[in-house]
């Protein structure tokens, strides 16, 4: 399941629904990305720009690749866009597998590809205005570790 949406979602409820749909899995891993405001550099909001048609296609492709590569029972990605305040959930990935290592590896693979290939762009809203979040070269490195 892939969902690209401006609407808030309940990560715990989504994970439970996902888990209940399968009896073949022994392990589930979730990753949840949260809007973070640090006391030394507070932000009032995170604004995510998105190219929805491309996001849906790329996330579906990443999901299919992860399921095949790690023999996952299932995998899902939910990603929001729009204006989010600190503490809100930006996105989540969930993987279900027979055993724990595949569930962990699948979730990390999804995150590493999503960081570099999913068309979302973050802006931080601060007292002095908006600033674009810079892409990290370590995200390219994280993605590269899966290339054979």
């Amino acid at each position, binding site marked *: 399941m892939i969902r690209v949406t401006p609407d808030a979602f309940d990560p715990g409820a989504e994970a439970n629904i996902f888990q209940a749909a399968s009896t073949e899995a022994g392990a589930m891993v979730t990753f949840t*990305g949260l809007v973070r405001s640090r006391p030394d550099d507070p932000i009032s909001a995170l604004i*995510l*720009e998105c*190219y929805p*048609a*491309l*996001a849906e*296609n*790329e996330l579906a492709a990443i999901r299919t690749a992860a399921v095949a590569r790690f023999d996952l029972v299932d995998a899902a990605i939910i*990603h929001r866009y729009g204006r989010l305040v600190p503490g809100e959930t*930006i*996105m989540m990935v969930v993987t279900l597998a027979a055993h724990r290592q595949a569930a962990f590896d699948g979730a990390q693979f999804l*995150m590493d590809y*999503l*960081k*570099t*290939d*999913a*068309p*979302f*762009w*973050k802006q931080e809203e601060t007292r002095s205005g908006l600033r*674009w*979040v*810079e*892409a990290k070269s370590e995200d390219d490195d994280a993605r590269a570790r899966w290339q054979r």
Partner: protein
Amino acid sequence: MKVLYFAWLRERLNRASDEVSPPPEVVTLADLVAWLRARDEALDLAMANPAIFKLSRDARIVSWDTPIDGASEVAILPPMTGG
């Protein structure tokens, strides 16, 4: 053909898209980018480091050497920061 710009590239250009009709010698997406940059100084400057951009054709990320091949929507994508 529609060309889309996102994030700080969109801001630098002050528009989200262009409607263009490239000449027949523009065969690949790389050709298209070169042709667009030659017509638009703001885009040329914003793409001074072209290697950081990815390109999509009809809502799929493809390599720069991909033929345009009748695409209806091409996007120029600054480094992504989702997740």
